């Protein structure tokens, strides 16, 4: 394994083609990145850390959606409902059965995955638009269920929950919770990157690229579409559980259709069918309101501010920016940030002769 990728295609084995790290440097770069992230609590204040934690659990859920939408080509407009399901399952398990929170998080993932499989089984027959509408219906039905199921969700009042504890050490501060989230992000992202190298991962991509040809090659369409739904729900559930034990309060209103759309926005902005893109998309979606706020603050007091009532309507402005970002990315950069990142890397690699 060399430090640089050679010019041209020298890969001789299948293993070399599917490797996660093409060069030694890429592996070192990733490890360095993780080490740098581990130092983040020393540098950032609590607010910035909370943004990073948000990026973490949203990124995990977005990755799940990306496996469903980007890798398998199935659309879902109900991802937030599954995210919420994970949050509620985790909080419920902890409160009702006193399962330790650290164990609740993977259990919530599995529970959500099971329910995702139940929803995915009928969805396996549908595709494209019909699936979009069916998942839209699932979003409303689950949302209605959350509001109704007092025993499970605490109804409209919401449900309180607690921080994870390990051997007497509580992850109740942003600094410590950051490491917990980081660990889960690494596990889930490595898991997804490896999934795509396996037989099952390739089958998912085949279903996306041409489902009829895939079926002719012996890929069981219904099985893989359902499986993809299950995996997406697993990721959503774990993201949701991390969310629940970070905020310590789960309420029904959070998991509305707008949140589902934001997940789709993350996947599109990050790049469909790109593992790291999901994280970039989540980072983009988390930073977007911050940038909007910053822009509004910059204009505060000016005549534009007075004319448009920026301060009072910042929440609408944020929603508009989300909508606009999705449309602009679709028109001008349909492959998302992941492609832009590749272009930047290529630019530096070929530096003096980048054309």
């Amino acid at each position, binding site marked *: 394994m060399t430090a640089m990728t050679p010019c041209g295609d020298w890969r001789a084995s299948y293993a070399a083609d599917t490797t996660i790290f093409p060069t030694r440097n890429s592996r070192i770069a990733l490890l360095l990145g993780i080490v740098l992230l581990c130092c983040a609590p020393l540098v950032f204040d609590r607010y910035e850390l909370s943004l990073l934690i948000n990026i973490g659990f949203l990124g995990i859920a977005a990755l799940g959606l990306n496996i469903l*939408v980007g890798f398998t*080509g199935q*659309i879902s*407009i109900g991802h937030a409902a599954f995210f919420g399901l994970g949050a509620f399952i985790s909080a419920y398990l902890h409160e009702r059965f006193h399962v330790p929170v650290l164990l609740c998080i993977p259990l919530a993932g599995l529970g959500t995955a099971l329910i995702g499989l139940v929803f995915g089984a*009928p969805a396996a*027959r*549908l595709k*494209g*638009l*019909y699936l*979009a*509408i*069916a998942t*839209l*219906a*699932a979003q*409303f*039905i689950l949302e*209605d269920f959350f*509001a*109704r199921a007092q025993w499970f969700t605490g109804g409209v009042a919401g449900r309180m929950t607690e921080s994870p504890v390990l051997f007497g050490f509580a992850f109740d501060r942003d600094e410590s919770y950051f490491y917990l989230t980081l660990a889960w992000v690494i596990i889930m992202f490595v898991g997804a990157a490896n999934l795509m190298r396996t037989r099952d991962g390739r089958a998912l991509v085949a279903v996306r690229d041409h489902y*009829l*040809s895939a079926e*002719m090659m012996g890929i069981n369409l219904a099985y893989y579409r359902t499986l993809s739904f299950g995996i997406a729900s697993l990721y959503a559930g774990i993201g949701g559980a991390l969310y629940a034990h970070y905020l310590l309060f789960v309420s029904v209103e959070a998991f509305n259709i*707008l949140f589902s*759309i934001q997940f*789709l*926005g993350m996947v*599109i902005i990050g790049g*469909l069918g790109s593992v790291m893109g999901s994280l970039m998309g989540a980072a983009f979606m988390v930073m977007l309101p911050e940038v909007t706020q910053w822009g509004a603050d910059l204009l505060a007091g000016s005549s534009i501010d007075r004319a448009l009532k920026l301060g009072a*309507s910042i929440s*609408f*402005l*944020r*929603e*508009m920016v*989300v*909508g*606009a*970002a*999705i*449309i602009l990315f*679709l*028109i001008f950069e*349909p492959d998302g940030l992941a492609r832009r990142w590749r272009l930047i890397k290529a630019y530096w690699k070929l530096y003096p002769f980048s054309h």
Partner: protein
Amino acid sequence: MDLTLLLQLTLNGLIVGALYGVVAMSFVLIYKASQVVNFAQGEFLLVGAWVCWWFLTEWQLPFYAGFIFTLLFMMLFGLVLQMVVLRPLIGEPVISVIMATIGLGIFFQALMKWIFGVFAKPFPPIFETEQVRVLGLEVQTVYLASLGVSLLIMAGFGWFFKASKHGLAMRATAFDQQVAQSLGVSVPKVFAMSWAISAVVSAVAGVVVGVVNGVSSALSFYGIKVFPAVILGGLDSILGAVLGGVIVGLLENWAHYIDSQWLNWGNMFQIAPFYGLVLILLIKPYGLFGTRNIERV
């Protein structure tokens, strides 16, 4: 059993269902012509209703003038949307187009909240008598008028597609774009026209609902109720859209009746159509009147 209530709710269902039918029709129009699933249909209602409200209250225009200006505005609105946002996405995968219309939906919903506020605002009264008695039931005049308007729009659509030149061009495009093009139909023009007509027709529905309930962002929920209606009727059938709309209107009112009489679950009014939707997708995914897709490699 409360028969008067049942009758009242059935009548409501028919009237609201006719409106759903109108919105579903304009949704199907876009889908048929340009294969775009418009998740921002509800926002067409919203924008139309707010613009009309603005003409009537801020500019103090009489209703007919404000209404005509609204329709003109919506025509431009639909044209511009199609040309600026949807045209660059021709040939992109379904999910991109769906996401673009969803993005448009959030954008305009937030924009309307920003400009006009979050609270429902009533229209100035349009009819002199508020209520009329029909078959022993109190019915709001506006509701009757809305039923009339809906029927008028449906008849208009029927004529447009059966007899007018543009309607035929649109049907030809829906049938096969290449063939239509080779016969001299300008496909981009047809796309733009379908969006303009859809926006105008949705705005009419939006104004009617606004006159009845006041204008608020709840209007955009009509755009979501359209999905059960069109799936029920079949995505590419105008007649199916109308029937689907009426069925959804009746379904939600009857669900409300059953709920209020026996179950007391609450919220059935909103959710029942979606249960119906899931059921239909499981049994008959191409709807009652839709054409079944046969795919070949």
